[in-house]
């Protein structure tokens, strides 16, 4: 009997307990519009198939859909990059660092090591949680010299776990090693050969105050589970409930552009006809074109069929 009471007392304490990691309840609270699958900790888990299709979406297309939905603070630029011609796509897992404070650093270290099963330094704790398809999104408050929390050791770990690079509001180190990873497509502010300082009894300049809490990256607010699309020097954070709309809108625009450009080359229509609202005749031609080319287009066949079903032409 005592054992049982002890067990429940322990459970109860774990309910009271907090870490700097967001609770599942708060995670659900912040993402009420997401009705789909979630990770065990509550973080929205958009489908792998949509992530795959997102790779062909441009920033303009995603930006326009978000703007129409009144999401106007989800884009940030001004980055240095690794693999500037590649596209970074994945589910955000966020970390928020602040300038170091010994009192906070100590309690977070103590709690992390003794209660939460965290290992060694705080800068590796969020990385331990990463899974395939995640993108590690970090606010390191733009720290440059003595800022980097990531070099090629942690870079290797991040890449092995996620298959992705990072979005990092701060400086990275070991830039050569990070580039050698090959597909570590990343967005960061600067490079510096130094590293951050994390000894509460000695040199300290960085404390991890949040894991998967809302994080500001420049002009954008990032919520864990947001879908990262990084390309062409910019990064947009797509709320998970808008991902499908972004992808589908982009695919339709892409198909219409392909069709329009082809017909302009063939001189079947004038630029004025194509650059305007299309006539019924052109819309019919477009439907036919989609049907004829359905196996050769850069959009999955099933999607085109679904799209055609909704058309009246």
């Amino acid at each position, binding site marked *: *009997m005592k054992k*049982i*009471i002890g067990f*429940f007392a322990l*459970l*109860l304490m774990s*309910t*009271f*307990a*907090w870490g700097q990691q967001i609770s599942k*309840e*708060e995670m*659900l*609270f*912040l*993402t*009420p*519009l997401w009705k789909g699958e979630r990770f065990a900790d509550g973080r929205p888990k958009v489908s792998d198939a949509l992530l795959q299709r997102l790779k062909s979406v441009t920033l303009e297309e995603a930006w326009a859909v978000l703007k129409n*939905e*009144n*999401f*106007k*603070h*989800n884009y940030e630029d001004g980055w240095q990059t690794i693999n500037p011609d590649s596209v970074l796509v994945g589910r955000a897992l966020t970390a928020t660092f*602040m*300038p*170091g*404070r*010994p*009192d*906070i650093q*100590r*309690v977070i270290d103590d*709690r992390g090591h003794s209660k939460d099963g965290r290992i060694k330094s705080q800068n590796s704790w969020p990385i331990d949680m990463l899974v395939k398809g995640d993108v590690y999104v970090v606010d390191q*408050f733009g720290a440059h010299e003595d800022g980097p929390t990531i070099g090629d050791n942690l870079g290797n770990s991040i890449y092995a776990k996620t298959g992705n690079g990072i979005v990092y509001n701060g400086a990275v180190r070991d830039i050569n090693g990070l580039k050698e990873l090959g597909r570590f497509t990343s967005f960061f502010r600067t490079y510096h050969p130094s590293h951050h300082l994390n000894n*509460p*009894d*000695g040199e*300290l*300049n960085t*404390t991890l*105050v949040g894991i998967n809490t*809302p994080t*500001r990256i420049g*002009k*954008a*607010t990032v*919520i864990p589970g947001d879908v990262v699309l990084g390309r062409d020097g910019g990064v947009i954070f797509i*709320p998970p*409930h808008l991902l499908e709309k972004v992808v589908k809108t982009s695919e339709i625009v892409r198909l219409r552009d392909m069709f329009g450009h082809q017909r302009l080359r063939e001189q079947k229509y004038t630029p004025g006809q194509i650059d305007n609202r299309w006539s019924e005749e052109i819309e019919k031609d477009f439907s036919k074109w989609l049907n004829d080319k359905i196996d050769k287009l850069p959009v999955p066949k099933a999607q085109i069929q679904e799209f055609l079903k909704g058309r009246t032409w």
Partner: protein
Amino acid sequence: MKIKAIIVFYLAISLSFMSLGQNIQMPKEMIMTYSQAWKGERFPDGRPRVSDDLVKRLANISIEEAWGVMRGEGYESQFEGNWQIINPNKPLAGRVVTAQYMPMRPDVNTPIMEKGKSENRKGSSNSWPIDLLQENDVYVADGYGKIIDGTLIGDNLGNSIYAKSKTGVVFDAGIRDLEGLEEIDGFVGFVRGVDPSFIKNEMLTGINYPIRIGRATVMPGDLILGKREGVIFIPAHLAEKVITTAEFIGMTDAFGHLRLKQGKYTPGQIDQKWTDDIKADFVKWIDENPDKRPMSKSELAKILKDKNW
């Protein structure tokens, strides 16, 4: 049967916690954990409550001396400069209440506004932190440096802040109604800029959570001292040490300057570690001039005993 009762009890309690969901204000246990180095009095919400006496004396110490003591304790990131100051001739001193603002996201703002209403918070969310202020609190907010459309207060909220706190604000953000704020006798503000626009495309994400103000990490219950040089944030558990040490340095400086003017000692004698004779002279002088002693006799005795001065 008993076990079942226990299980039901547990489920009921844990459910009641889960239903809290997001906390607009940092939960008490979280504040207590972060500030566990503080052993003194607390507000009901857990925020450290450094004594009124120390808060009053804080206004008279220098930023450099506070900075020096904290640096000696390993606190390197407590100062932030480069402010536009409203009413710069009065120091700003008090206990910190923090607020975090972020760029607007409708999906996040909607549940926060609903939660706020269910907690009986009134009006727009940028007034919620103000509703909590008590005398000697200082409202410190991270508005991510936004000035245009990022003005956290105008003279209406400014009047409310001053009526409640009798202090002022530190905003990594802008304000509007500068003239109206300047007219509030006693109000002191440290802000990044002024703009006639009002707050827009921005949302409150938390009250009394850790925030960053430039180079400094700020916790609720910290003391804040703002002077023309900038602002410095003092962890509650260091407040007494910072203030008494700074006061003590002020006392020894006053004594040293006086004796130099009188020609009693040479600059070399005063600018070095004092001899036992000079120390005895100082103790006698301070005993005869209690108005030069901002701290209590027992605090001074502690310093004279503890410190290798």
